[in-house]
């Protein structure tokens, strides 16, 4: 019989078998990586807003407390997006004819809401409650990052379930004294672990079992 394949075929054959296996695994790994990448989580993505509101300016430079605008953060599930009125409290006098604030004034005049673009989108079916986290010593910056350094707000954490669980399984590593909750500069001290444990006990934070029960976040 005549040779069907050239001798190089041997190498090709073996290599392609190997390649197939490797590629398949790479592809799989790829999917898992992408699922955690900002492409899916929208981490560190800032949006074009009707008014390019700068948290850096308001929080960092002016030192306005978070609760001035997000005033239901301690009492309600929603931190609350300030009504135009809140903006006008200051901007009826400050920069009261700055062109880039026109949308705000327009909204106030015409009684048309400003349509902000949502930046922090939690996964579906998650019932997140700001107030309880605030009340149990989880600071704003723990999840939202140093907002005071963000000219344009962006999502600082992946906000996926794995990320939530990391904290719910060990709150101690993030809990801070209540009086530090709104402090943007707060950094975890070296002995966070032990302090955290103390605070967890002091604030009667629920057991890991309870914190990781499905119905804690899903209804």
């Amino acid at each position: 019989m005549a040779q069907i394949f050239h001798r190089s075929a041997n190498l090709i054959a073996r290599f392609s078998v190997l390649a197939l296996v490797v590629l398949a695994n790479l592809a799989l790994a790829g999917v898992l990586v992408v699922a955690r990448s900002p492409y899916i989580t929208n981490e560190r993505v800032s949006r074009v807003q009707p008014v390019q509101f700068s948290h850096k300016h308001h929080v960092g430079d002016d030192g306005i407390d978070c609760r001035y605008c997000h005033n239901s953060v301690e009492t309600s599930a929603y931190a609350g997006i300030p009504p135009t009125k809140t903006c006008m409290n200051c901007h009826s006098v400050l920069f009261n004819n700055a062109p880039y604030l026109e949308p705000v004034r327009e909204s106030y005049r015409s009684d048309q809401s400003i349509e902000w673009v949502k930046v922090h989108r939690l996964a579906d079916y998650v019932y997140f409650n700001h107030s309880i986290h605030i009340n149990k010593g989880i600071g704003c910056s723990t999840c939202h990052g140093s907002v005071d350094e963000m000219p344009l707000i962006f999502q600082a954490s992946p906000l996926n379930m794995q990320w939530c669980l990391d904290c719910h399984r060990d709150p101690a590593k993030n809990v801070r004294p209540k009086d530090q909750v709104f402090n943007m500069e707060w950094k975890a001290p070296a002995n966070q672990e032990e302090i955290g444990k103390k605070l967890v006990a002091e604030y009667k934070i629920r057991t890991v079992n309870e914190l990781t029960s499905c119905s804690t976040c899903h209804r």
Partner: protein
Amino acid sequence: MEHHSHLHGVMGEFETPEQLLAAARKAREAGYKHVDAYTPFPIEGLAHAIGFRWTAVPLITLIGGIGGGLTGFGLQYWCSAITYPLNIAGRPLNSWPAFIPVTFELTVLGASIFAVVGMLALNKLPQPYHPIFNVERFASASTDRFFLVIEARDPKFDLAESSRFLQEASARHVSEVKDEE
């Protein structure tokens, strides 16, 4: 084959398995080391006759099986009892009896894959090209002819000598096996 090429060995063609078996045994006695036989179906004792005894396939399979089994149980235990322990139907976190089926399946899976891959690897397959295919008559190796090849790399190999040896061993036909460069 005009263009120059080097020799892979000489090939004797036999009519029956018995003749081949006999020839193979002779070759061993004659002190040939690098001998291979080609038959349309496995023939008892032939491998032994050409001096091939031990194969690693069973060992590989065992390893695959054990690996699969451990992965299987490990995975389940880790998922149910370690990474996210949940109270399910009031059953214990380590419900080992419930983990048996998956453990078993993965054992079998591991073993089987290792067995096949191991066998192919040891046989150096895939290997679509092989000098022996150059011999026209070799096609019938997958029908009704039985071949014995004495390879050139055998220290005792000598074209004329070995060819004669094969003829004496009642080979119906002897031909050189060339390997193109």
